[in-house]
């Protein structure tokens, strides 16, 4: 009872040398033809992309697909080409945002730009003087206070949504989700109406309060995801051993979800650090450096960008780009740190899973 080993036939793999050449040609030719056409006739390149490149690419890919799989290959090709085209489009836009902010912003960036404040600086002052030091201080203080307010509350909300058995959880979740769509300008108007009603003076703390409703839903949602990732077996085991719920939370769930909760904090920070409209409505701008968020005006990075972009001088716009780059670096740093912690978490959780399965 022995069979001679059959040659491995893989009918689903129909690529051979001819087909590979076709695929390479189909990926290169439309691009070359379009480029040639643009150079030769000088028509608008975006028009050429839509009118010449896209149809050519669809036809070329369709031909390869038809050659390999018959009629259904054509549908495949159409979908793949359109999908890749749109995705590449978004990617190009994202890269364009990054590249323009980095190239334009780095022209303004220097040590003095990061540390000096904006006193005696006008729209036409040379970039060798003045900087965003006061705005960095203001942004960090205002956003820091928002964090102190929003993070404990957001995590408590997430605990309520994951640990309690209340019937109102669905409603709370819905309202929190609705809150996450709160337009930032409305949040600013809300705090402005508080300021006007009670006759307060505008100051940094009101900026923090205006950012609070924007940060809260983000923290609550990400923290809820993080708490959900902790296996409920752990909590149930702690409860079965006689631990009260709060001990189970603080001693079992919290340590397990720690990095996820830090991610919630960081993503919440990244969400509000660049918010402009609420700060414009609730905090007066300040050219000097202010360390006191409870009194008087305060400068922030978004307000700095806004102020200098509203002027019509080129040197002022350079400052706006520079501050934009600082803002982008802050956001990217927070975001990258959040991702890094998230990854560290998922790596750690693997070995514990293996242990549990034994």
């Amino acid at each position, binding site marked *: 009872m022995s069979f001679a080993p059959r040659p491995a036939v893989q009918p689903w793999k129909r690529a051979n040398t001819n087909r590979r050449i076709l695929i390479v040609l189909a990926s290169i030719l439309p691009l070359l033809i379009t480029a040639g056409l643009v150079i030769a006739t000088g028509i608008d390149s975006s*028009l050429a992309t839509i009118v010449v490149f896209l149809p050519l690419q669809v036809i070329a890919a369709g031909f390869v697909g038809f050659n390999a799989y018959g009629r259904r290959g054509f549908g495949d090709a159409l979908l793949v080409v359109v999908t*890749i085209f749109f995705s590449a489009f978004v*990617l190009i836009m994202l890269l364009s945002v990054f590249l323009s902010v980095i190239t334009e912003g780095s022209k303004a960036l220097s040590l003095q730009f990061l540390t000096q404040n904006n006193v005696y600086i006008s729209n036409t002052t040379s970039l060798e003087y003045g900087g965003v030091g006061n705005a960095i201080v203001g942004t960090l203080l205002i956003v820091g206070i928002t964090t102190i307010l929003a993070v404990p509350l957001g995590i408590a909300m997430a605990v309520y949504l994951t640990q309690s058995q209340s019937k109102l959880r669905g409603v709370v979740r819905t309202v929190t989700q609705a809150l996450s769509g709160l337009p930032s300008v409305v949040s600013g108007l809300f705090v402005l109406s508080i300021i006007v009603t009670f006759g307060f003076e505008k100051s940094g703390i009101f900026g923090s309060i205006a950012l609070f409703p924007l940060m809260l839903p983000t923290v609550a949602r990400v923290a809820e995801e993080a708490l959900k990732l902790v296996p409920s077996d752990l909590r149930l085991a702690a409860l079965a051993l006689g631990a009260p719920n709060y001990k189970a*939370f603080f001693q079992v769930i919290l340590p397990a979800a720690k990095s996820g909760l830090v991610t919630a904090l960081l993503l919440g920070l990244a969400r509000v650090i*660049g*918010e402009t409209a609420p700060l414009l409505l609730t905090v007066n701008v300040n050219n000097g450096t202010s360390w006191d968020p409870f009194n008087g005006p305060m400068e922030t990075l978004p307000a700095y960008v806004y102020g200098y972009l509203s002027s019509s001088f080129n040197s002022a716009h350079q400052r706006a780009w520079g501050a934009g780059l600082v803002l982008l670096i802050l956001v990217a740093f927070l975001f990258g740190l959040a991702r890094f912690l998230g990854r560290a978490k998922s790596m750690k959780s693997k070995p514990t899973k293996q242990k549990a399965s034994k």
Partner: protein
Amino acid sequence: MGKLKPMSESSVSTPAPARRKLSAGPLSTGDKWFFRSTSIAAYFSFVLVALVLIFLFLKAWPALQEQGVAFVYGNTWVAEDGQPLVMQIGPMIYGSMLIALIGVLIATPMAISLAYMIVFMLGSRLAKIATTLIDLLAALPSVIIGLWGFYVFTPVAISWETTLHNYLGWFPLFQVENPENAFRGSPFIAGWIVAVMIVPIVTSVTREIFSQLDKDLINGALALGGSRLTVFNKVILPTSSGGVVGGILLGLGRALGETVAIFYVLQISFNINWGNLLESHGGGVASWILARFGEAGDGEISGLMAAGLVLFVITLIVNFVANTIVNRSQPWRKN
């Protein structure tokens, strides 16, 4: 489990402990306070929404009382010294809707393509990178998008608009009265900027729904001889359409509230732009608030509060509907 010692005789012979009281509520006082404090935190979200509504309404009341219902649909805004205040936000509401609609129309195909690409075409490693990039796009502050839109994107978009006008100018949407002073600051550009900002949220909802689709269904359709295209049209889209529509509505809610980015790229003027997308005037409630806020007196501030209230109510409704649809189409997320 080998470490467990055998039970000693004495522990077996002790009398059974008194029957424990069984109840579902928290047992200890510590627990009571634990749950009490978390529920206070949770109910705070109700309080917050109520506070926003109450305070805005209080401050908006004088304007609303004076202007009546016409505040929402009228189309005059006079706020100069010595003249009676007339504040009617109609054109701005219309402008917000127009721009949000353009944004959604542009963002939807991109978001669905991205989601399809991430879930069905990329390997897990590339998919993770793509997801991270999309999330990063979502985290970009709107003031940076505005800066980019003003400096980098507007010139590019103007060349697109010129092309559109040259070749499709006969189509009413792309008609322009005077090409000399059109194109810059048009609703078309603002729509693109809004699209860039809502692509991430639509993508992440769509991706989530695509990734939870029944793989057997898709493989079955492929085995029956379907191509990617037919599988997408006949299987993926019908089964996920509800959630995708919810995601698009979420994006619409975000688009309606966009402020700073639109403020930079749009030429705000108070006449209704009835659909000449390339003409350089348009509007938006949020940007209008920002534009008027600086020089507004007390009476006008009240009008702007009323505008904010209207904006909040609209986005609240849109978001509520969107979230209901999304939650219903993601039953696996219920815990």
